[in-house]
Structure formats: structure tokens, C-alpha cells
């Protein structure tokens, strides 16, 4: 194999690694939100990165504090579901659009809401790491529905594990085993 061949293959593979790293960054962010994991959340932004959620504009490092408080105030549980990502990379700068579905169980009552929108990101690679420089968050729709299933006897009988807002969440357990359940059940 010639040096040129290796170079071309390396470029191809670097592109695929970059795409994966950029997707992982968006997923890390979502997970950070849902687990109230400030360190993980902050790691998605560069120190000089900026996040925009409507009128709330936060420097990257301050975003975890803002979003954790906002979520905690209104919702019992939530999931930020990151879906497909369209991405353009030019050197060390990437622009991407990542679809997201947010599901939120209201703190009061038996309702929940389903929001859908997109994260528009400009990321930069520094020292081999891709992180967000600018994030904008258009919301394209929502609907409200019934969440009473979560308190129904039929559901509670099934004994499902709940998500936790700290390291008791099962997703932190290493190695994952059946013998311990630090998390609560519904």
C-alpha cells in the first residue's frame, strides 16, 4: 500500500471519527441534562461557547446551572431524545442540525408534554476535541397529554426502575449488574 493510499484512507477514517465525535457531543449534552450531571453537560461546550434557549443566553460553562434550575422548577422527570444529525465539516469547524424530542413530566398533576425541535450548532475542534461554540434551539411544536399511567396500580405493580438525578441512576453502574439497584422504582 502506498503512502498516498494510507493518507486517503486516514482522511476517510478521520472524517468518520469526526462525525461520530460530533454526534457523541450532542448525545452527551442530552444525557447531561437528564442526569443533572453538570460536569458532563459543561464538557459539551468550549469555555467560550454560548448557548441560546429563547431569550436565555448562557455562556457554555454557566449553562448547566441554568438548565438544571429550569428543569428542576417545572418537571419531575424528562428525557432529551437526540435523533438524526445533518452535519457539514470544514476543517476544524462543523455546522450541524440535530433533531430533538423533549419529553417532560410536569411536577404538578398528571400531565406531560412532548416538545420537538432542533439544535443548531457550530462546533470547533481544538486539541482534537469537538465541542460547541454556538448553540441555538428552535422549537417547532409541542403537545400535551396524560401521564397518569405512571401512578396507576397496574404500572406500579410491574416494578420498573426510575431515572435518578444523580449517580444512583443505573446508567452509571460499572459494571452493570442485576444484583444492585441503587435507583428507586416507580
Amino acid at each position, binding site marked *: 500500500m502506498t503512502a498516498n493510499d494510507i493518507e486517503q484512507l486516514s482522511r476517510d477514517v478521520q472524517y468518520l471519527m469526526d462525525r461520530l465525535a460530533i454526534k457523541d457531543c450532542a448525545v452527551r449534552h442530552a444525557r447531561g441534562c437528564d442526569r443533572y450531571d453538570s460536569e458532563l453537560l459543561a464538557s459539551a461546550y468550549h469555555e467560550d461557547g454560548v448557548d441560546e434557549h429563547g431569550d436565555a443566553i448562557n455562556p457554555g460553562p454557566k449553562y448547566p446551572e441554568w438548565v438544571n434550575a429550569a428543569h428542576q422548577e417545572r418537571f419531575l422527570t424528562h428525557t432529551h431524545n437526540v435523533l*438524526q444529525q445533518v452535519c457539514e465539516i470544514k476543517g476544524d469547524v462543523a455546522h450541524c442540525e440535530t433533531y430533538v424530542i423533549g419529553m417532560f413530566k410536569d411536577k404538578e398533576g398528571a400531565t406531560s408534554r412532548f416538545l420537538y425541535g432542533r439544535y*443548531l450548532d457550530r462546533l470547533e475542534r481544538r486539541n482534537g476535541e469537538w465541542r460547541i461554540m454556538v448553540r441555538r434551539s428552535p422549537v417547532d411544536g409541542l403537545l400535551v397529554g396524560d401521564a397518569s399511567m405512571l401512578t396507576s396500580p397496574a404500572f406500579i405493580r410491574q416494578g420498573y426502575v426510575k431515572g435518578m438525578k444523580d449517580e444512583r441512576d443505573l446508567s452509571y453502574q460499572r459494571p452493570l449488574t442485576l444484583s444492585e439497584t441503587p435507583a428507586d422504582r416507580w
Partner: protein
Amino acid sequence: MNEQEREELQRDIAYLKDRQAILDCVSRHARGHDRHDSELITSCYWEDGIDEHGNAINAGPRYAAWVNEDHAKASILHTHNLSTHNCEIDGDVAHCETYVIVGLLDHGGQSARLISGRYVDRLERRKGEWKIALRRSIVDVAIAGDASMITYLGDLGYTHGTWDRSDPSYVRPLEIGTPGVKW
């Protein structure tokens, strides 16, 4: 690295590239839908490609016009959210199934619905490019709900998408503060 290892490496890389290219094609299609971007939608099909959405069977090049009109009749904004993706490649032909949850805001903005379904695709690679040769669409589940509280998003300053190039997703480079349409 010996000959066999070199060939295996090249095969692996080609496979990984194909998988990414196929998923990107399907993802671009979803984006095209949501921005009513006819050029982008059309670029996902071969000229002799076919799209089936129920009784509506459109030749690839005609699909964009049909779907933009259909979406406009049925809603004022929508997103096509792609999730579970399975893909089998056999030479220059790929069969894939991609789950989609379509969110549609009804005319009047007071209600919305989600349609959960799947795109079942046969893509073909011609001259190194993967595009849709045949797409068949399935609807599995749906839900309708109240969307009237969406105005609170306006109070918080959130913007929403548009059906043209003024959508903020087209802006380069992306910056905070470029104008957007608020709820």
C-alpha cells in the same frame, strides 16, 4: 500490513463510509421535508426513483412538489424525527428501514399530532453516490394532543422553523442573535 490485511481494511472503511452515506441521505430527506426545500428532497432520489406514501405514488423528481403541498394542507409546521435505523448492504444495493416520528402542528396552532411510522427503502449506489430507488412508507401509531400552550414559548423568546431559506439552520457561520421568527 500484508495484502490480505490491506484488503480487509479497505473493505471495512468502504462499508463504514457506505453506512454513513446512506444514513445521511435519509437524514437529508427529512430535513428537506421540514424546510420545504424541493432541491434537497429531490437530491435524495434517483431520477427513476419512486416514492410511495399510501395511494400517492410519485416519481422521485415529482415527490417534492407533492409532499410540500400535502404538508401545507395538513399543518403549519412539522418535523420528521428519525430514530431506529437498520441497514443491509449487498454490493450496490442497500435495503434499510428507518423509524420516523412526524410531529405536525395543525392549522390554527391549537393542536398537534405525532405519527409514528417507518420508511422502508431500497437505495442504489451509482458512480459512488447512494440515493433512493424506492421508498415505501408505513404508519404504525399516532397520537393527537393540545398544543395551545405553545404561546408560552413565545413569552420565553423561542423561535420556530420556517419553510424557506430564512430558517436559521441555513445561516453560515451560525451566530447568536441572527434573527428568527418567534412564537
